[in-house]
């Protein structure tokens, strides 16, 4: 099944990146029938309502699939914070990283975040799983961090361990999240916000884009 019409629709509606991955390998038995993962990314900082925008795009994808007789299951961008419904219990079974890497839109950097070649790790991601036999994109082959270790050296809490991510062992822990979080509690400034985010801003892939945009 062709993916172009769906991708074009979502891009026309504002998605920065759209990819389709075969996510069979990553699924548990509850979800195994929904083996295509549609990864949708928005360039962060575009607006403050990034999550709402992503959810709107997910809805469009759901409708598109439904019209063609397929089912879908959307994992919202802030899946970890949702607790209000029954379906929220299944969110933790799917990571946005899975769909992104399986659809070739990025690898996981040493900083533990999805890195896209063009946009770096400044993206917000959402995933739609479906049983539509969409033709999958080529998965990413591995990390392109190379010798760079900027995020390892600059992380104020020493949380970034410096490992290379690979598809072979996608669950290896790259960042000591307890350390990262402890910084957050130490500096109350971040209490309700995301953490310091140096690992995002320091990354050359995130910055090259920045340079391009501002000449």
């Amino acid at each position, binding site marked *: 099944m062709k993916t172009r019409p769906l991708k074009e629709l979502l891009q026309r509606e504002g998605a920065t990146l759209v990819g389709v991955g075969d996510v069979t390998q990553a699924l548990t038995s509850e*979800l195994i029938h929904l083996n295509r993962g549609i990864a949708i990314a928005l360039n962060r900082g575009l607006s403050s309502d990034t999550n709402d925008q992503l959810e709107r795009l997910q809805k469009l994808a759901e409708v598109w699939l439904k019209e063609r007789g397929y089912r879908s*299951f959307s994992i919202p961008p802030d899946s970890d914070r949702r607790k209000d419904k029954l*379906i929220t219990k*299944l969110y933790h079974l799917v990571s946005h990283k899975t769909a992104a890497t399986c659809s070739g839109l990025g690898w996981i950097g040493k900083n533990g975040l999805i890195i896209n070649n063009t946009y770096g790790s400044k993206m917000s991601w959402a995933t739609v799983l479906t049983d539509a036999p969409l033709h999958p994109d080529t998965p990413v082959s591995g990390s392109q961090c190379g010798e760079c270790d900027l995020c390892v050296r600059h992380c104020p809490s020493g949380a970034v361990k410096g490992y290379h991510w690979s598809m072979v062992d996608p669950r290896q822990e790259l960042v000591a999240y307890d350390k990262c979080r402890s910084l957050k509690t130490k500096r109350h400034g971040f209490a309700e916000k995301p953490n310091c985010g140096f690992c995002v801003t320091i990354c050359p892939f995130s910055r090259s884009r920045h340079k391009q945009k501002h000449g």
Partner: protein
Amino acid sequence: MVDEAKKKEVLEKMRNGVIQYDEDACKEGAQEALDLGMDANEAIFDGLVSGMEEVGRLFEAQEYFVPEILMCADALYAGLDILKPHCQQMDIGLKGAVVIGTVEGDVHDIGKNLVKMMFDVAGFNVYDLGRDVPLDKFVEEQLKTDSDLVCLSAMMTTSMVGMPKIIEKIKEKNPDCMIMIGGAPTSKELADKWGADGYAEDASNALKEAIKMVSFLKKLRDEKAGKK
């Protein structure tokens, strides 16, 4: 008089909303039902719940799997949230107190919640223990609240086996309390076998049974008081 054709359409909308896990359709349907002046109870059971029954069938036919089921249940609750406040409060001239919960090892609580809702509507005092409730918790709660009834729900053949244990303990500690069981794998025969005082196959019958039981208890108490 509510227009029959329109009414059917709205019920169908809610039913399909649940089946197709479309929360918005369920909400719209629920609102439309209210705008039409339909009875909220009827909208719930002939619309939303009838959809969930079909979902159960689809699950059995392996057309639906766990994520679909959960989304269907979310859609049902979305409609229920709108309709519930409009359920006609019945005045049955009787105040009962009920402990209700889904037994240990079982997280199916949609049916239990519907039964609970009927009790709420009837003005009963309901102590809802939730789902996956440890067996002893029912006994404790009954003693603590001195409720007239304990209602046990189970949707699995593996979890319903906890029921006779609870029944035995409650009867031992408080023989005056009555027990009703329900949920798809249970039956009148099992209720009799396990020494429960009642069984009902759906939520409205659960309420009818409960009313019977509470009035019976009341009569019993009055008689006792009279003898003294």
